[in-house]
């Protein structure tokens, strides 16, 4: 937020002081997150409607997903939220080395998450279960789908998987954007730009990352758990 006219290197001209600037940063991010809720909201609405209309198929579709990988991924992402929270804390308490370490840890955990996600996607591809692009389940697979829940039908399972891919894909896209932001933060923190005086960008990055985590907290039950495993 450096504007050349400003006296202090990090103090932008339109603000009275740093405190105001910090407030503005967090409020801006929260407002943006409200927007993000509605962005995913459109997907949740579509999901809700079709789940209501085609419950058996959605349950069958859900059973095609790997609940173990889903649970592990949830844990991984929660871990990255923890390290992110600790990164913000490190900034608050002026521990510059810890800040960089925690940022790196967060990125690593995020990477693990995406890696696992990739494995899942690849698995779906192998089984011809990618709607639109690679959807050609053979007779056996169709029978398997239909066996999962009475009343399930392949076209609606495809619809479920379509939501699965679009929702998790959007989520992954947000994580990738988060990666980009965090790389910038890492560079800036290595250059010593942050301190307990000025850590607003780190905090705002944290908010974003936690939000992405929360989306997953809901995607996990909605996509992996609805079908049950009993």
């Amino acid at each position, binding site marked *: 937020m450096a504007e050349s006219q400003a006296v202090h290197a990090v103090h932008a001209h339109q603000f009275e002081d740093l405190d105001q600037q910090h407030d503005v940063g967090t409020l801006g991010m929260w407002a943006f997150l409200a927007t993000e809720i509605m962005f995913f909201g459109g997907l949740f609405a579509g999901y809700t409607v079709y789940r209501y209309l085609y419950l058996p198929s959605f349950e069958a579709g859900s059973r095609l997903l790997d609940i173990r990988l889903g649970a592990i991924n949830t844990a991984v992402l929660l871990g990255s939220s923890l390290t992110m929270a600790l990164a913000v804390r490190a900034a608050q308490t002026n521990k510059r080395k810890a800040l960089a370490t925690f940022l790196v840890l967060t990125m690593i955990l995020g990477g693990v998450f995406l890696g696992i996600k990739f494995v899942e996607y690849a698995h779906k591809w192998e089984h011809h279960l990618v709607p639109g692009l690679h959807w050609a389940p053979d007779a056996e697979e169709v029978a398997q789908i239909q066996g999962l*829940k009475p*009343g399930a039908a392949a076209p609606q399972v495809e619809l479920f998987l379509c939501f699965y891919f679009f929702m998790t894909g959007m989520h992954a896209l947000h994580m990738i954007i988060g990666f980009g932001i965090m790389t910038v933060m890492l560079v800036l923190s290595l250059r010593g730009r942050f301190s307990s005086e000025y850590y607003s960008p780190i905090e705002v990055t944290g908010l974003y990352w936690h939000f992405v985590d929360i989306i997953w907290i809901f995607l996990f039950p909605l996509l992996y758990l609805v079908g049950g495993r009993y």
Partner: protein
Amino acid sequence: MLLKLPFQPDQASTIAEGVDRLYLFLTFITLFFTAIIFATIFYFAVKYRRRSDDERPPEIEGSLPLELAWTLIPTLLTVVIFVWASSLYFRNARPPRASSEIFVVGKQWMWHLQHPEGPREINELHVPVGVPIQLTMTSEDVIHDFFIPAFRIKKDALPGRYSSIWFEATKIGTYHFFCAQYCGAEHSGMIGWVYVMSPADYAQWLANNSSGETMEAAGRRLFNQVGCNGCHSESSSATGPSLKGLYGQSVRLADGRTVPANDDYLRGTILTPFKQRVAGYPAIMPTFQGQVNEEQILQLIAYLKSLGPEEGKVKQ
């Protein structure tokens, strides 16, 4: 006739007059408020026009009673309008028990209409005066909308499901109908005429035009031709359920739901059998999507409906 506005479309159905009365009332409200506001503004603007450049008018904060007045009066008015409009709508939406049915299929860019007695028309609709008629509509492709201005009725014809409207024509004559939902290049060409005829003329017209078979007969023919009878025969070796007396009952599905066996249900079983499997039968009925078009499906349904409530279907 008292209600005849200078630029009013024909009033040719039992519904039209009620709608026009509401329309007139709303017009009156609009004129009333517009007039009040214009008059007041005009009066103030002249009376309190600026006379010198450094005039300072008195301070007026506002007035709670006034605020309440112009909040509550419009609110009350809207309540009146809402109740009036909604009850009228519900009355208009419900077809009388004795309606006879005509089937409408919209497709880019024409209307196909079939009478149960057999006659089929394109972009023309012949109906008798004084008889409630229900239109059951669907679409082969995109969303269309069947609109008869003189009857004040309109409803979307959607792909994948049935919608319906009804009317009772009150005046013999010829009226426009339009497609009122944008549907592509020839949207504005998807128009036609309703011919409202005296019952005698209508009977004559029916007789002259039903050289073909009735919808029910066409349905029976299709039933055998497409191969439904292979599974749905009355023989004990049939793999599918008997369809006698099915229409109007409720059906228990394999996933536990219970649904009414109405037009939409029958249509669903033919096109998307996987969406609703009847409990207790193997899931072998294939989809007939692409083998029968919407009109033929309507004929099949007409046939299924005609399989009266015989002594029920014998189940093992």
